[in-house]
């Protein structure tokens, strides 16, 4: 294989990996902070994708404009969902283990609800639109070409992932969130308001999945059933990176994208899901706390 072929292969892996990372970050934020393993995460991504598609085809709204819009809409949905379900769950569950199990069941319910709602509303077929499909040559790499929308997708996915991590690292809000992740009781003792941070971060997590869906709809076809594979991928990514670790999710996402691209190139595409489930189970059995976590 030539150098250029390798470059294209790894770059296309990184592009998918960037999206994986963005999805996984949102899921990880919810799990790390609240112990809600949101199986319905991919369904909200699908909602973001369909919102973008509907606005694009009906009124010709630019997908770029839909990024903040779908973030806003899904964040509102997230706040509502949290208020209706998880707030009550937090109050009534006797301990964290029970809360985790119940939260998992609630998110399974959400998955059925949202996915079938979309299927009823939009039907089951594949949909899509054209946006920036012209190929762009990468400077310095003679002949290596990528569709413009994929490059944009990668850049924006990295931008939003970076922005989230920056917010968590640098701002007072982020400090509060990190404190809650490290020790819920300790954080509450120093006056961090769980009642406000939990819904907010749940909303941000869903908002990010909306953004990811919006980005995905620019270069891939969408359908009501598209969410589930992405949920599984995001689960794999956060197990790779360690549940609750943000940098791990970013690295895990990019790594999984590359592993998938290379694996698919050398075996065959129908092995893709077999490959990712294989990686997932192997990692969970071998290192249940994630590849990148140091043992304390």
């Amino acid at each position, binding site marked *: 294989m030539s150098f250029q072929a390798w470059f294209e292969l790894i770059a296309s892996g990184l592009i998918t990996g960037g999206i994986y990372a963005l999805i996984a970050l949102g899921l990880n934020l919810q799990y790390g902070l609240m112990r809600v*393993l949101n199986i319905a995460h991919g369904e909200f991504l699908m909602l973001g994708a369909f919102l973008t598609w509907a606005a694009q085809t009906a009124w010709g709204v630019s997908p770029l404009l839909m990024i903040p819009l779908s973030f806003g809409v899904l964040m509102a949905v997230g706040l509502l969902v949290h208020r209706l379900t998880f707030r009550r769950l937090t109050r009534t569950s006797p301990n964290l283990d029970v809360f985790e*199990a119940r939260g998992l069941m609630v998110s399974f*319910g959400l998955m*059925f*609800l949202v996915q079938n*709602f979309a299927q009823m509303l939009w039907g089951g077929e594949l949909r899509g639109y054209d946006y920036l499909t012209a190929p762009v040559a990468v400077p310095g790499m003679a002949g290596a070409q990528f569709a413009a929308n994929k490059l944009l997708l990668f850049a924006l996915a990295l931008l939003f992932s970076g922005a989230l991590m920056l917010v968590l690292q640098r701002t007072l809000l982020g400090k509060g969130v990190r404190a809650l992740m490290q020790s819920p009781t300790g954080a509450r003792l120093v006056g961090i308001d769980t009642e406000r941070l939990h819904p907010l971060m749940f909303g941000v997590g869903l908002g990010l999945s909306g953004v990811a869906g919006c980005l995905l709809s620019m270069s891939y076809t969408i359908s009501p059933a598209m969410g589930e594979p992405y949920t*599984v991928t995001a689960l794999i990514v956060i197990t790779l990176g360690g549940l609750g670790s943000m940098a791990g999710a970013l690295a895990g996402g990019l790594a999984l994208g590359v592993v998938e691209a290379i694996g698919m190139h050398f075996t065959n595409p129908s*092995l893709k899901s*077999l490959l990712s*489930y294989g990686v997932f189970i192997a990692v969970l059995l071998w290192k249940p706390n994630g590849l990148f976590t140091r043992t304390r």
Partner: protein
Amino acid sequence: MKRDWLILIALTGWALALPHYGSDFAVSLALSCLMYAALASSWSLFCGATRYLSLATSAFFGIGAYTSALSLEHVPFAVAIALGAGVAALVALVMGAAVLHLRGTYFAVLTFGMTELIRHAISYWEKKVSGTVGRVLTVVPERDTVYLAVLALAVLALATAIVVRRSRFGLALAGIGADEQRAQTLGVDTRRVKTAGFALTAAFAGAVGAAMSVRWTYIDPVTVFNPFIGFQTVLIALIGGAATLWGPVVAALVFSLLAETLRLQLPQLYMMALGLLLILCVLYLPGGLASLRLPRRRGAAR
């Protein structure tokens, strides 16, 4: 306990009589009800008692279905069911050895992942090696034979649950559910008890899969490994009350009625109702339907 046996015998008698006077529709309704009663009560036998949330039911169901599809041309129906149960239990032993040391969300997610892995592996194998997508079952027993087989399995599952609840084994399972470390300290070999319980659940799911596969006459990995079978089992057990004996049976009845009336006309609405019910049930009835009746017995049930 005596009352449980009496209820079981009465229900069995009623179910036995059904094919003689009921319409085809009533029998198929009863069949799906029995299937979910068997699946849900065998699921809660292990998962309800130990509170290990297994999502692997559809894996064992599918394995049973495939075993019976492959073996039915060579052996009688009853042997095929036993084979399905055996193979599923064997897979559960291997799977259990790998995952039963993990708890909570990890266990649930891993069992789900393994189910999907098995499904994709079998799809891939069928496509590449056998060169087929699904399998048509040519030798199929009569409707009443299938009904009786599933009825027998449901009764067996409930009888096992009644017996196990009062046995040392069942108490060990409940002890693990209450506090695993304490159970271990008190001398329960938790690893062996958990593996045995998991295999027992799997054997029932495999047997039900083997018996139901002949009902469909055509099977492919997407139908028999449908994760939805697993979800619905968990849902029925949870809504009925996973720690109770009769809760899952009542919930299975309600769900089969709901499924048969809604699913054909409005499949999406049915799924949405299912999701909503699950959420409402977890939020407002965490002990299941069974916790609604007679609060004085709650102390005894725990």
